């Protein structure tokens, strides 16, 4: 299925833009993480990042639905 991804902060740099569409072979969110790491090896460094779907954090076992948006929000520290 096609998954919409929105990336903030350094995640935007790693995936090369704010919005991205991934074609994943299944519904589990963990597949998105795997695909991101295989396409963008630097994403491995954000291994500790929790994924949000729509407006909530979810576990990697979450089953994605059509039109779900996966949101990547890494910490930023500037002040």
């Amino acid at each position, binding site marked *: 299925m096609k998954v919409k991804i*929105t990336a*903030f*902060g*350094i995640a935007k740099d790693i995936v090369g833009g*704010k919005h991205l569409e991934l074609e994943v072979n299944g519904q589990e969110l963990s597949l998105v993480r795997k695909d991101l790491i295989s396409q963008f090896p630097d994403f491995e*460094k*954000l*291994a*500790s*990042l*929790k994924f*949000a779907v729509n*407006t*909530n*954090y979810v576990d990697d076992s979450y089953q994605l639905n059509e039109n779900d948006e996966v*949101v990547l*929000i*890494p*910490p*930023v*520290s*500037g*002040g």
Partner: protein
Amino acid sequence: MNKDDLLRYNRQIIIPEFGESGQQKLIDSSVLVIGAGGLGAPILQYLSAAGVGRIGIVDFDEVSLSNLQRQVLFNTKEIGQSKAKTASEKLSLLNPSIQFDVYESPINSLNAMKLIEPYDLVVDGSDNLPTRYLVNDACFLLQKPLVYGAIFRFEGQVSVFNALKTDGSRGPNYRDLFPTPPPPEMVPSCSEGGVLGVLPGIIGSMMANEAIKLLVGMGELLSGKLFVFDALDFSTFKLNIEANPDNPISGQHPTIKELIDYEAFCMGAVKQESIKEISVQELKERLDKGAVELIDVREDYEYEIANLGGKLIPLNKVLSRSNEIPKDKEVVMMCKMGGRSKKAIELLQKEGFENLINLKGGITAWQQEIDSSMKAY
């Protein structure tokens, strides 16, 4: 409240939700602001203008030229002056009735509890991840609410942590939002990643807004929510944050009962004690004596701004070009502030290097302590 106060605060007193009682609450309140930088400037200005009775300012730094693009509380004549002190002097002119407490040393695990304890609310405008976890944990342990904000390039985040809820419990905190810090190079500071000058103005004003709401007790706080703003496309995003039962400080089985070493915590797997360090003074002595093997892991453009003549191998190339690094003598690794070179050493140690020393504070420390004529960035 005297006649002058009624006039000074008139425009907010006449708002029904705010009123004279809201103003009195602000006057009776105390707030500790961590960092008098990009975020700190608007936070301090608005809290002072609004009439918060007592304001603590924590900043060990001095005003520098590269601050002025965004830290609009300061001006060119003030370069080199203490930020906390200068801020308090200027804000006293804005509102002479406020008590300002100036703290010119860095907040750390040893002093944080004592610093925060006397205040009703903490507003965190610090500029690094270890301080963010430190302030979060100290606020949780002291049961103080915390207004959080952070910025990067065009983006800002705002939230309110540990806010008292109507049922008497406390709202989620920073560790519910970010349980595990990513490696340091994934969390660049403003000096590493850059920031648009108006962004801290926007985000800092939002933080002041949450602080005032919290103190007055009006509206709905950003408690349990992370607000994200992107100035580049003007998009906003609100993420729900829930209390995590596994949170090591506020969860069901807390393991953090006092403040820890936050630098080490944020370096993750890097065992700091396994990396030898050298100060800029020691490096200078060695350079004066003769040959020192020096490797600079910054990017080309940074090297062009200022360098110490070291061999340039950017961090992301240290592994592929490790054959260019001698193994048979001591090699000093350097970067801008010491974080990336530490990372490089960590990576190379896994490849068998045992001869690498980190330059503490990087070229920034060199510029500050050895050669002030060198271009800073």
